[in-house]
């Protein structure tokens, strides 16, 4: 919790640290599955800024709620996304993790585009690049969204947009995105 910015001492108002609150809003607004949404947005973390951190950055969050959704569907969605963004040779790895909105939860990696998974300097030697977090929507989250977890299941995933862009376009420093040197902006 140390990484949250508060607007008041009583810690009632925070700058959101991730885009997950949108899950409940999407379910409240759309009410009836099928629900397939993606939501980009600005988030804030109390990090010191360095080449891979910035106190403000963008996240993209996806949510699917439907009958019969499985971990396999989540894996397929992530594979589709990474192959579309980075190329058809990419593979996806899901490592079990822990997040409060999902059960089971994962961190997901893409195979490294430089070495193809063999391990190189770019990926730190293990062949995988960490992309983001994901998981099957926790039944309590579905229930809070007015959706029957016995009938429907869902999955959600999220990642930092700058980090994805940095991987895709070889951006050496995440702060480039907020510094706005036109020589950088004109690359795009």
């Amino acid at each position, binding site marked *: 919790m140390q990484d949250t*910015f*508060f*607007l*008041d*001492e009583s*810690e*009632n*108002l925070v*700058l959101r640290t991730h885009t997950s609150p949108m899950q409940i809003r999407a379910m409240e607004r759309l009410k*009836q599955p*099928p629900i397939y949404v993606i939501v*980009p947005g*600005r988030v*804030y973390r*109390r*990090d*010191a800024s360095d080449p891979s951190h*910035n*106190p*403000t950055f963008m996240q993209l969050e996806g949510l*699917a709620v*439907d*009958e*019969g*959704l*499985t*971990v*396999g*569907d989540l*894996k*397929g*969605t*992530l*594979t*589709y996304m990474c192959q579309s963004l980075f190329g058809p040779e990419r593979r*996806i*790895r*899901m*490592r*079990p*993790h*822990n997040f409060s909105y999902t*059960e*089971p*939860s*994962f*961190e997901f990696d893409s195979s490294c585009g430089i070495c193809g998974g063999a391990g190189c300097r770019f990926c730190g030697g293990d062949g995988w690049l960490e992309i983001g977090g994901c998981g*099957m929507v*926790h*039944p309590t989250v579905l229930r809070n969204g007015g959706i029957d977890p016995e009938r429907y*299941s869902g999955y959600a995933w999220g990642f930092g947009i700058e980090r994805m862009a940095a991987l895709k376009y070889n951006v050496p420093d995440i702060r480039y*995105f*907020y*510094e*706005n*040197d*036109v*020589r950088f*902006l*004109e690359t795009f």
Partner: protein
Amino acid sequence: MRVSFEWLAELADAGEMAPERAGDLLTMAGFTVDAIERVDLSQILIGRVLSQQPHPQSRTPLWVHEVDLGSEVGQRQIIAGAPNAVPGSLVPVALPGVTVPNGKEVRDAMIAGLAGQGMLCSREELLLGEDPEPAIMLLDEGEPGRPLSTLIPTEAVFEVEVTPNRPDCLSHLGLARELTAADGRALRHDFMPRFQGEAEPLATDMLQVRIDDPALCRRYVAAVVTDVTIGPSPRWIQRRLRAAGVRPINNVVDITQYVMLEYGQPLHAFDAARIGGDQIVVRRAREGEALLCLDGVTRALKPQMLVIADEANAVALAGVIGGQESAVTSETRNVVLEAATFDGVNVRATSRALRLRTEASGRFEKTLSPELALAGARRAAQLLAEIAGGAVHRGWPDVYPRPQDPVRVRVWPDKVDALLGVHVPLEEAEAILRHLDFGVRVDGQDGSWDVLPPVFRLDVAIPEDVVEEVGRIFGYDRVPATLPGRRQSTIRPFQRSADAEIDALRRAFAAAGFTEAVTPALVSGRRQQRLGLSEGSLPLFNPVSEEADTLRTSLVPSLLQVLELNRNRGRGEVAVFETARTFLARPEPDGNPLPQEPWQLAAVGNHGFLGLKSVVDRALHDLGAPPAEYRRGRGTLFHPGRTAQVNVAGQVVGRLGELHPSVLREFDLPGRYTGCELDLDALLAARLPRSATELPRFPAVDRDLNVVVAAEVEAAGLLSTVADAGGTLLERTGAIDEYRGSQVPGGMKSVTLSLTFRSPERTLTDSEVDGVMAEIRSALEQRHAARFRA
């Protein structure tokens, strides 16, 4: 967490497994192995220092050593920068050509005029831990010339990421259980050691334990161990502690650390002679109470903090740090061993309030099972008996008022396949759970499973948790990737997002040479105040820097900062725009705790007023908004005489004008810049459906009119008078030029209006248009005291 592979492999019966394979299994089971450090010391030789002289030439402190490396290698001259390698010391030596474990390659070198023929190594260079000062590692024993691996076997150390829901796996035993399960086996190691001690009298007769606040301490187990011999730990304990990043101190303290790393249960050893009244009371700290802690710091305690006390004083800060007065020293004979379960929330609050995070507090914060306390206490007591020669008294004080409730999760096994999207054979799923120490009972009636998580797992409560256990050990790499989708009966028409709708604006600005920027929403509150923008501004309660301590109320300063940065880097002619939300406190509390977040477009560049206005006009047209009307306006950042209010459909949607020189000075920008701010929600709301009109069949008549009026009369006012007076024949009107100077009297200006007349029914004659022009002239004379120039 740092994990010794040798230790892990022993517990997991995985001596044959390669560290890389174990690392992969753990990673895929949910314990990401971030790094495998290898400490291979077979290339490092043991040397004896024969002499040590200060380097005669070097300006930095260096010493020249003559080192004996045994009969095969002989003697070498080695230059080093730490003073502790005195003659007679046994030291680790890396000869030229050897790469030491931290990656440094040793070469022959001339150092300030003298030849150096190798390197004396520090602990850090050998990845054996850290030395407090720059110092050469000194060895207790060893034969010169023999490899260091004869003393310290080659080993691998894992850096493992353990998620906060699994404090049971902040331990070698916990990870060993995961590793064996991932390897398809059960752990051959009982969770609860049997050792209970036999010495008389009963420990309960030697020590009283009382918990005053059972909500904050669920269990307190104390073992009494007499006649211990304090000394260094055996080498295997020291080696494992070092691999895990812990500095050995003495056998008793080392055993508490060792068992914490093995079981995950923090432990503390008190010198029993320092526990006044032979009683331990777990209570809240008293007002004004202070404790001299193990790190030498005296801390003032607050009544919400939990302490361990004897009959009179606090002797330890529960779950955070021990006290120095009651600590085990080389004089200690009798030991009280504490294994307790403290409330995670309270430990976290204490640790935060004191800004003191310890290995123990980090574990208690994650909530430990009280069952773990007894297991840890028994294991540590056993080691105290074996290693420190102590007599462990039987009959331990164990205050455990409300035992942990057993957990039982009912799972229909078909849930596994349904959630994972892969077929897991029932026997395999059941075996996985048993390997993880879960109990599984199959209901003969309906085939459902009664799943009993092991006592140390507090994170398993619902069927999904059980499915996750099966999934992560079964292996998510075995789950096929599929895409969802089915025949839908609900049809939701496609609706573009608001962000996509304003792409028209983005394209118009980009086409006019503006670069899109994305700037941080957190800005300097002081600068915002200097710029007069602090009204409604929301400061952060806990900022990290003064440069980013407040939410912005306007985008314009952020853009000026971009211009400043680019100008300093040699790009002066830059124009930028941004679309983003700004943040304003609600002027009056209306029950909504959230601030207003106006969505804005701002642009800044040196296009001049008319240049920027034409970009805005084009942008609004492309968006589908009605044309803007520009009226004299003002704005905090803008030049009072050179700023217009932008109105669309009778509503103020923004402003456009020259930026005030004092604002530009704040950013060190010379010259003139124009900027605009537009409210995007208002613009989107003002859009009209596009609708074609019938094209005219008759020609138009164009006229210009030079109107001379007082300088303060607005062009927009003139245009609306013209529109009123022009009637139905006036098709279009606009102000195309403005002139002040010698051709018009002082205090006046000349505005050139362009007028287009057309009738849908006939070709207009000159005299018809002259008639309307006369009416327009007279209206302008009456309303604006206008005169006319040829």
